[in-house]
């Protein structure tokens, strides 16, 4: 076992930053606050890189050949056989996560120093941001499920605090409401996750990830792929519960409704928490416990189905939104669906690879939108943009890179990861019937087209068509949707023009654009690699291989003990064919987008899409309203007011009545009380005297 103290440094640097800013930030100027916040995350990033390179040098351990670095911090909870030490562990999976989280986090912190300039609560913002980084890193590095849960809840808290950053605004659709919504929806998933932890301890006898995966590997056969498997209380139940936890955090159907509303927070928050890092925690958790999932094909099927449906559903909603951040939010939900689709078909490595590339291009797109919003004086409605290319050249160029990357334009990062997912989905044999894989692939391909279309629409509306920011058209979209970013004033005044953002914002954009462009080359799919003569070109998945489970499609490594997962011969022709098809999809989607929106940027799409399939209304009608009614009519009016209050009042009335009678004993004269006490004392002494005498 290799131990190190680096990991503690990685998590505690942002914590120190958060503490310093929280305690003393109020007296610091913006420069100092920004410097502390960025520097602590920067320290984490440097330490993460060092830890990463150290990890490459250590010897693989155990039968699985996983490289691990341990950093025991302190024993935390020890009750009987239950042990939950606060230990950190770095293995390939967490190493990859730590590096991109700290890297992207560092860039976003720098961006935020410019974006948040002049905002009230500047130090508060960065205190929460640093606290978020700490919690996210605890989530990633925790060696057992309980430590992960601490980070899991911590990022939820920071998410809540940051969504509600502009809490002074009042109204039904304003930040504090969105924050509460995010928090409550996440609670639903968290409960499932907590139950999963208990169940894991019951079954595996430990909650250390290494031991849990070991336990799952030791199961001789996968559970049957039936609905009844969820009732067995074994791997399927655990996997399903953990996935429910993941749907909350990673905004999947049915718990995705909080993420679009979470855009009420400042844009760097949307970029860091609600696009790049926190929302991918669900994927991370599934990948972390992938051995459990491969033993639970029915849970895998649920994961893949939910992932595919979320990807498609969110993409259709994204097609019709007017708020630039809402489009990106639904795009995030959709891409998260992709990641879960990958996990569901057993391609955990591909899912994690997409997490990384997505973090780059989605952070880039969000930061770009932040730059646009700032340039437009807090206008988020795309109908009021247009023609920004001339005024914001750097933002335009970098966002264009992000746009092409997310569309899957050849040789950019999104292309490789998305192509890998689609290929793995097509060829999966995680399910007994290979038709499922083909269906999922079809949904994924459709989503890919839609993605290209709505992202093209976003770019067209924002940057290319004629300038509309002084147009006065009806606010038929409702006021709340584009007043979310929290300023009394928004939009450009007459005669003003948009302006390019300062270097502190454009620099991270440029860096992220480079990452989004070339970040994919660490994971060039094997088929393409062979084409240009590189063996094992898919470095990311090879790196991850020991620490995540494999099932089905990946030819190089056989699945672990899954009956259905016999190795499939690597079919280069098929893979190249699918790659070509993906390129067609991306280019076709972009072309369609241009063709439709170039001429008619303000094209109205079906109302149901603009209304987000009315999911919020459905939840309101089926869940929230009945609960509210139940609480009001039964719990409040019957149970609380009648029973509990009635009981309390009855007791109080009884005592008041008793007191009313008893008070006739009280003369109110202090001295008479003393006399009585004295008399009583004398009686007591007399009693003991008599007692003694009798004896």
């Amino acid at each position: 076992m290799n131990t190190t103290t680096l990991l503690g440094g990685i998590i505690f640097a942002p914590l120190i930053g958060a503490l310093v800013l929280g305690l003393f930030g109020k007296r610091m100027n913006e420069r100092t606050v920004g410097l502390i916040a960025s520097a602590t995350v920067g320290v984490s990033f440097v330490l993460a890189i060092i830890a990463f390179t150290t990890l490459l040098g250590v010897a693989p351990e155990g039968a699985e050949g996983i490289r691990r670095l341990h950093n025991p911090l302190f024993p935390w909870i020890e009750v009987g056989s239950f042990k939950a030490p606060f230990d950190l562990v770095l293995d390939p999976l967490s190493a990859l996560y730590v590096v991109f989280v700290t890297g992207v986090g560092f860039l976003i912190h720098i961006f935020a120093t410019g974006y948040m300039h002049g905002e009230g609560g500047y130090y508060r913002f960065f205190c929460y941001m640093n606290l978020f980084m700490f919690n996210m890193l605890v989530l990633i590095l925790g060696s057992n499920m309980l430590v992960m849960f601490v980070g899991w809840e911590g990022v939820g808290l920071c998410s809540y605090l940051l969504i509600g950053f502009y809490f002074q605004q009042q109204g039904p659709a304003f930040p504090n409401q969105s924050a509460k919504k995010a928090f409550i929806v996440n609670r639903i998933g968290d409960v499932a996750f907590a139950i999963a932890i208990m169940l894991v301890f019951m079954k595996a006898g430990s909650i250390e990830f290494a031991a849990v995966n070991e336990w799952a590997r030791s199961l001789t056969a996968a559970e049957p792929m039936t609905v009844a498997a969820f009732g067995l209380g074994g791997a399927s139940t655990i996997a399903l519960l953990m996935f429910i936890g993941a749907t909350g955090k990673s905004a999947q159907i049915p718990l995705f409704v909080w993420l679009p509303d979470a855009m009420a927070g400042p844009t760097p928050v949307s970029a860091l928490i609600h696009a790049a890092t926190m929302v991918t925690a669900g994927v991370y958790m599934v990948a972390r416990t992938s051995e459990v999932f491969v033993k639970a094909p029915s849970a895998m099927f649920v994961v893949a189905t939910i992932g595919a449906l979320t990807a498609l559903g969110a993409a259709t909603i994204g097609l019709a939104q007017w708020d630039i951040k809402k489009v990106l939010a639904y795009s995030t939900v959709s891409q998260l669906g992709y990641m879960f689709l990958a996990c569901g078909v057993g391609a955990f490595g591909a899912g994690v690879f997409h997490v990384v590339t997505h973090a780059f291009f989605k952070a880039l797109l969000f930061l770009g939108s932040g730059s646009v919003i700032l340039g437009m004086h807090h206008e988020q409605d795309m109908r009021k943009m247009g023609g920004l290319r001339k005024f914001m050249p750097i933002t335009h160029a970098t966002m264009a890179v992000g746009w092409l990357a997310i569309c899957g334009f050849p040789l950019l990062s999104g292309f490789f990861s998305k192509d890998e997912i689609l290929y793995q989905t097509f060829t999966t044999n995680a399910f007994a019937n290979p038709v499922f894989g083909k269906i999922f692939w079809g949904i994924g391909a459709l989503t890919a087209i839609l993605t290209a279309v709505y992202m093209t629409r976003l770019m067209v509306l924002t940057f290319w068509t004629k300038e509309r920011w002084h147009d006065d058209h009806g606010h038929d979209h409702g006021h709340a949707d584009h007043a979310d970013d929290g300023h009394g004033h928004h939009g450009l005044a007459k005669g003003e023009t948009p302006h390019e953002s300062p270097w502190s914002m454009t620099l991270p954009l440029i860096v992220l654009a480079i990452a989004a462009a070339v970040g994919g080359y660490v994971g060039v799919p094997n088929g393409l690699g062979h084409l240009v003569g590189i063996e094992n070109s898919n470095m990311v998945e090879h790196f991850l291989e020991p620490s995540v489970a494999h099932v089905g499609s990946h030819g190089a490594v056989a699945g672990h003990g899954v009956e259905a997962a016999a190795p499939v011969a690597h079919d280069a022709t098929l893979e190249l064919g699918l790659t070509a098809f993906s390129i067609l999809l991306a280019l076709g989607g972009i072309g369609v987008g241009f063709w439709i929106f170039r001429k008619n940027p303000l094209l109205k799409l079906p109302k149901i899409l603009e209304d987000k399939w009315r999911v919020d209304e459905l939840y309101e009608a089926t869940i929230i309203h009945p609960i509210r009614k139940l609480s009001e009519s039964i719990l409040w009016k019957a149970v609380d007011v009648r029973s509990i209050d009635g009981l309390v009042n009855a007791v109080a009335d009884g005592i008041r009545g008793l007191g009313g009678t008893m008070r006739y004993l009280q003369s109110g004269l202090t001295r008479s009380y003393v006399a009585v006490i004295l008399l009583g004392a004398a009686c007591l002494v007399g009693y003991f005297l008599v007692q003694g005498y009798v004896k």
Partner: protein
Amino acid sequence: MFDAITNYFSNLTPEHYFFFLFAIVAIASALEVVMQRSPLYSAVALIFTMAALAANFVLLKAQFLAAIQIIVYAGAIIVLFVFVIMLLNVRAEESRLDRFTALRWIAAPSAIVLFAGAFAAIRFSNLDTLAPSPTAAAAGTTERIAEVMFTKYLLPFEAASVLIMMAIVGALVLAARAKEYDAELSGIENQEVPPKPEPEAQPEEVEVS
């Protein structure tokens, strides 16, 4: 008779002399506490009682408690009393005691009964035969007290510290909120009570005085 008295005095050890000396001081100053009209003089007289009792503690080989008696009682508690007396600038107690004379007829006999009872209890018991313990000196050392306090009686000790804590808070609340109550009382006298939003949820007026 006379022989008995001379016998008695010839048997006296220095301990006896000291005991009687301090007992007389204690009783005299205790009487003074009760008989003085000015509370300030009472407080000063109480210091003498404390000191005399501390001396008795030394006779009983409780050296540590004797020191604590002086430091805590005479040094802290009585000083607190004196502070308050001076803060309030109390006039000397009026001499009239006529308002509840009837009580005197209950109190005096009960006090006499009380003392008589205690006296009888002491006399009838065979406490006289109780021999002084040889380990008395060891029982009163700081070390021994600390040992017992922090092992066997740790919980009462902690409870006492909580009690002190509550007393501090209580004293603060009582002393500090007096002004607010003043304002509240005068406000209620001068103006109408504002209409309550819910008639059944009327807060009860709580008064300390």
